[in-house]
């Protein structure tokens, strides 16, 4: 029998698997799709690897936020490359700004553009370094409004937080700060694709005697005497374990618990009714060889200072993140660029009943149009980008939903709401003592959030 059975092989599931296998426990990871990794997985088109969710990671230098966690997971062995000192660049309404690595350098850099807000900037970076659980109840937007009297600066410091859902009425300061802080400490890109990270974690699990099975879709969990005893898969296979960890969306998990008497309707309905964050639209571009020098920074381009409200407005695309992929052949030129922009579910709801590859011409045309809008914005930083493109692959929340099982294609899982923190931040525990939760929906999304949540989940297993 297994000590721990993990449902889902996203970063959270594999991190839990690695930590627990490292403790000598027998781990089995079951992944419903044919490829492990969830948002960390990459895919290959035309000889190039494209990532789904991995763009950059923060705080990997010794002593910083993520270094210890990644060391324990064996991930510091991977070829991380530090990004430019000015790791994030921001363009709003044609004006250029830069984020520097290091809290003081960050504040000092922006104070050159906003000398009248110098004190506020240093107060801001001080606050980022002293975030506590009490900040789950603080509105990020209200805090920023109170801190910065300059509306443009408020937008500038928020511009790179496209890594979470910027929603004025709900986003807690706790989440906003975690989205920014580790990247300001130091920012890193992986030389290679996300599968390097996935394979490293799987290798650690296997080396310790554990297994990762793909194409194994769990459909039901069985309870006996107040504990989960087995997971039943769609192919009829049943797996037993002492502990179970869910790295899938909690609403999906609750559908597997319908026959469990210890899980009352109140819990299942609360999880099912929770709101999800918005999705993302991505245009992944392959660039003609030797046409564009590689740049080791991200660029966030906005038409105007409406960083917090742009998804409330309809088309065209108002803001885009430009992420260049590091060349793996040590060339000075890049071959790939990702353009990302937030995309609410309602924009693609018309095709909700369609499947991958069969969404119809109108969907293709919608995606082409949206990609063109992203490219047009990106041309504020890379002139004539459109002429340098060989291929453009697009993905929408529908793609995330169908490949990753994320309800409504949500990019950051269940929404956190500073007005109801008790209801939107979740415990890793469940009504069943040997069933635990992990992943981006529980406490915090992103690589940092999911990794930290995995440590919290594993702390519950003696």
């Amino acid at each position, binding site marked *: 029998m297994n000590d721990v059975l993990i449902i889902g092989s996203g970063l959270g599931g594999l991190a839990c698997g690695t930590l627990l296998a490292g403790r000598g426990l027998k781990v089995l990871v079951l992944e419903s799709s044919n490829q492990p990794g969830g948002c960390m997985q990459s895919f290959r088109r035309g000889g190039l690897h494209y990532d789904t969710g991995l763009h950059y990671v923060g705080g990997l230098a010794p002593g910083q936020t993520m270094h210890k966690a990644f060391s324990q997971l064996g991930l510091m062995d991977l070829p991380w490359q530090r990004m430019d000192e000015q790791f994030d660049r921001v363009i709003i309404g044609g004006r250029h700004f830069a984020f520097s690595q290091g809290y003081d350098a960050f504040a000092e850099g922006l104070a050159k553009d906003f000398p009248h807000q110098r004190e506020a900037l240093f107060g801001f970076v001080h606050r980022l370094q002293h975030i506590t659980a009490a900040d789950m109840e603080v509105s990020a937007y209200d805090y920023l409004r109170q801190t910065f009297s300059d509306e443009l600066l408020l937008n500038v410091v928020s511009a790179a937080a496209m890594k979470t859902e910027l929603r004025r009425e709900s986003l807690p300061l706790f989440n906003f700060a975690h989205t920014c802080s580790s990247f300001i400490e130091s920012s890193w890109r992986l030389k290679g694709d996300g599968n390097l990270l996935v394979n490293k974690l799987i290798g650690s699990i296997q080396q310790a005697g554990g297994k990762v099975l793909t194409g194994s879709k769990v459909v039901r969990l069985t309870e006996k005497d107040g504990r989960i005893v087995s997971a039943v898969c769609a192919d009829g296979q049943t797996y037993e374990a002492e502990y179970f960890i869910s790295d899938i969306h909690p609403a999906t998990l609750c559908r597997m618990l319908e026959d469990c008497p210890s899980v*009352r*309707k109140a819990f299942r309905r609360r999880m099912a009714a929770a709101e999800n964050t918005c999705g993302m639209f991505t245009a992944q571009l392959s660039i003609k060889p030797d046409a564009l020098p590689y740049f080791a920074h991200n660029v966030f381009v906005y038409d105007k200072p409406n960083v917090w409200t742009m998804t409330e407005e309809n088309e065209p695309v108002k803001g885009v993140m430009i992420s260049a992929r590091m060349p793996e052949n040590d060339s000075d030129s890049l071959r790939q660029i990702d353009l990302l922009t937030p995309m609410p579910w309602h924009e693609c709801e018309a095709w909700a009943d369609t499947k991958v590859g069969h969404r119809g011409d109108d969907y293709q045309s919608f995606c082409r149009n949206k990609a063109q809008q992203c490219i047009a914005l990106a041309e504020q930083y890379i002139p004539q980008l459109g002429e340098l493109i060989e291929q453009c692959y697009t993905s929408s929340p529908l793609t995330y939903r169908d490949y990753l099982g994320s309800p409504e294609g949500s990019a950051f899982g269940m929404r956190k709401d500073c007005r109801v923190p*008790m*209801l939107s931040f979740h415990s890793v525990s469940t009504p069943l003592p040997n069933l635990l939760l992990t992943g981006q929906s529980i406490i915090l999304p992103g690589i940092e959030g999911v990794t930290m949540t995995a440590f919290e989940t594993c702390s519950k297993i003696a």
Partner: protein
Amino acid sequence: MTREEIIAEINAELAEEFEIDEATITPDAPIYQTLELDSLSLVDLIGIVQTKYGVLISKAELPTIKTFAQLYDYIEQHQK
């Protein structure tokens, strides 16, 4: 909503959601024991009250709600 309407509605809802016999819900009955609440399912109770009446029971006031009558009072006083 009148107090009587709140009582009828919330009793039925809590019996359904917490899978207990509605007859065990009386004004003076202890809410924690009757609904078999622990720290996790307490959040479910807060969620039901918030969703149904738009009333958020604050952390500070939670300890003052020990019986169903006190829950009815709280909803009645805070409903929008």
